[in-house]
């Protein structure tokens, strides 16, 4: 095993290539293997009025590999958005999701694109998870027409109709009744799909959540309410805002599950369990215990209400990408160098997307309407003008 590491970490020269190829047979699992793996979640699930799912999660090498790549993409994208905001290319509001990637990725792994997702304003990564491209994200953030909402929405308004991603909402808690409406439509049309309605610990104290929960439970709507508990509602810690910060229990008659939101496998297991349950028994609440490294938004430094030690502590011990990296290395699915290469590739993809989105689309209307270049277009205009002035 050590030999394979050395071989792959050196620059692949033609001499060593056949050697490394031979040595790679010694790797236990290749990164595109779909052979099932079973891995235990790091923490047990805590349940309320239901039976918790088992801690052993079915996954595969290729799935873990894709987790790493997708989460690295999201992380890099959010960091790049941070720099763009500071360079004043992104204005207004920018709420970053780094630290919480496991929730978006784990959820996607458990469901299909026919299931609906609706979330609040921290939606860049959820959009990517639902099939959005990096170009659409950066285009929208910079207000370009190549953006997901043609530049008309901004950071808080990403939507993707074809993969049932319903946004992207700026007003805290307003998406929760919308999410119940999506579930209502699914029940009305008798589809076997569910709706994941995401909200934060701050929104968990909104009245409309309880109103919507009541209706969802009354009519057995396939709605799964996911509280992404990053412990701070902007600057207010959860214990200062909620009398009962056990958000998974706040549904009372609605069953709930508390999940380690930094463990992508736990999230996947919980979402799979939730989908099966919701189709049979109606709504339930998932509380994802997660953390955001940035402040609430780019105008919030994030350090006035929490200590830097706390932030770095979580980063050291619970970072979702590091966790998957360790899993990949421990199960020998990939080597250090391969993972670093992926990160380099991701960085390049993100930079390319930003460069492409930065190009200002000048006179796009003319360019798209007239299938010729500017000089020809101006010539045509000139002669038309001459023609009409002669006619007069």
């Amino acid at each position, binding site marked *: 095993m050590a030999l394979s590491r050395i071989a792959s970490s050196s620059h692949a020269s033609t001499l060593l290539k056949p050697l490394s190829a031979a040595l790679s047979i010694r790797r236990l699992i290749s990164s595109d293997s779909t052979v099932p793996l079973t891995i235990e979640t790091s923490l047990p699930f805590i349940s309320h009025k239901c039976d918790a799912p088992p801690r052993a999660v079915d996954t595969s090498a290729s799935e873990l590999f894709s987790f790493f790549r997708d989460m690295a993409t999201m992380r890099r994208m959010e960091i790049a958005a941070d720099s763009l905001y500071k360079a004043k290319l992104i204005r207004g509001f920018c709420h970053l999701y780094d630290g919480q990637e496991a929730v978006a990725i784990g959820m996607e792994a458990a469901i299909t694109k026919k299931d609906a997702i609706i979330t609040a304003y921290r939606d860049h990564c959820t959009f990517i998870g639902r099939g959005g491209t990096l170009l659409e994200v950066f285009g929208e953030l910079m207000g370009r027409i190549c953006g997901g909402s043609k530049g*008309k929405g901004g950071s808080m308004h990403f939507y993707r109709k074809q993969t049932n991603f319903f946004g992207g909402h700026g007003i805290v808690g*307003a998406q*929760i009744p919308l999410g119940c409406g*999506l579930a209502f439509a699914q029940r009305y049309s008798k589809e076997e799909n569910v709706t994941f309605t995401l909200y934060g610990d701050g929104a968990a104290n909104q009245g409309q959540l309880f109103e919507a929960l009541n209706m969802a439970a009354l009519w057995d709507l396939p709605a799964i309410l996911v509280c992404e508990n990053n412990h701070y509602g902007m600057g207010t810690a959860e214990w200062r805002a909620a009398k009962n910060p056990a958000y998974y229990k706040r549904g009372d008659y609605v069953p709930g599950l508390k999940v380690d939101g930094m463990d992508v496998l736990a999230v996947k297991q919980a979402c799979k369990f939730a989908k099966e349950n919701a189709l049979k028994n109606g709504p339930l609440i998932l509380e994802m215990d997660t953390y955001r490294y940035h402040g609430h938004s780019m105008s919030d430094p994030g350090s006035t209400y929490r200590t830097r030690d706390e932030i770095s502590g979580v980063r050291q011990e619970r970072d979702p990408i590091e966790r998957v990296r360790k899993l990949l290395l421990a199960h020998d699915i990939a080597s250090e160098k391969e993972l670093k290469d992926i990160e380099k590739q991701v960085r390049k993809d993100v930079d390319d997307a930003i460069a492409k989105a930065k190009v200002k689309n000048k006179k796009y209307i003319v360019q798209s309407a007239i299938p010729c270049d500017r000089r020809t277009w101006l010539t045509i205009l000139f002669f038309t003008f001459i023609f009409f002035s002669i006619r007069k």
Partner: protein
Amino acid sequence: MATLFQGVGAVTPFSASSSLDSNKLLLPSRKSLSISDSRGSIFVYRSDALNLKAATRKQDLLIPNAVATKGETSTSAKSGHELLLFEALREGLEEEMERDPRVCVMGEDVGHYGGSYKVTKGLAEKYGDLRVLDTPIAENSFTGMGIGAAMTGLRPIVEGMNMGFLLLAFNQISNNCGMLHYTSGGQFTIPIVIRGPGGVGRQLGAEHSQRLESYFQSIPGIQMVACSTPYNAKGLMKAAIRSENPVILFEHVLLYNLKERIPDEEYVLSLEEAEMVRPGEHITILTYSRMRYHVMQAAKTLVNKGYDPEVIDIRSLKPFDLYTIGCSVKKTHRVLIVEECMRTGGIGASLTAAITENFHDYLDAPIVCLSSQDVPTPYAGTLEEWTVVQPAQIVSAVEQLCQ
């Protein structure tokens, strides 16, 4: 956008000049609608028999009372059928539910109870509890739920038991209903209809006598219409359901028992059009909803005094039908707006601004706007009457304008 329905016998030439012949019209409101057909709206099929009868019934259609009295119409056999306004709304709703399985209703007590104003009576038995949904008392969330369902393609009709209760859903109506089509870059349309009774009733108290059209009018992305007769109630209900845009349909508590004969055939009205109630020469009176009846009552007095008012029921509160209004202003040069909204920031205020901006040169006198007083509606009957525009005030305003 309104689509064109070819009705046998109701097709009129597509020329702008035909609409100016409104002063030669002896036929009542329905005929005049077809004249404005030139802008390509959905129109009415009427049988010839009804046309002839309609000419003789002109006086009957100047409904003088603010509130309906039963048994006014003659008992001779005519085509069409007679019904009350709430029944007309129900008929329109039922026809649309029959036609499109995606249409559903949600609101408080709409199902088993049949609707607090009986608009949805019998529908739950026919279509089931999911299509005619009794919601808990949670306006914010069930309006939000309707909007979420509309995003997926369902066509919900959300009923506010009283329009005033929809203030609790203002966030959902403004931010989600109005704006989602724009902020998603056009990906989602919200084909929802939000309807309910508003306006000043009979001593219902301040909180139950609100006029929400003034609060909703600024929301970008929504359309607002107000119905006033059984005929336009059914037509506007159907048009609102068929529209891809979010539409708020304002009904009035006191108009639910109005009786009128409406055609048997299917018809859909245009959401963006005003209705010519009474063509005239001297002054244009713009009104909507219940105030139409106060205006018509005043018109009786005015006609006796020798004035010839032109009464237009604007119907479309957002956007205004500036075409019909403009043609009228160009003819009469004087405008009186009679509305039930508050003086400050009401529909009349916006309409005054719109007319001044567009037709200032055609006005011989400043626009006069008669609105309700800027006070919470009192409970005592006499006081309540004073807060709302009465026919006597309309008559004196016309006299003053026409000096």
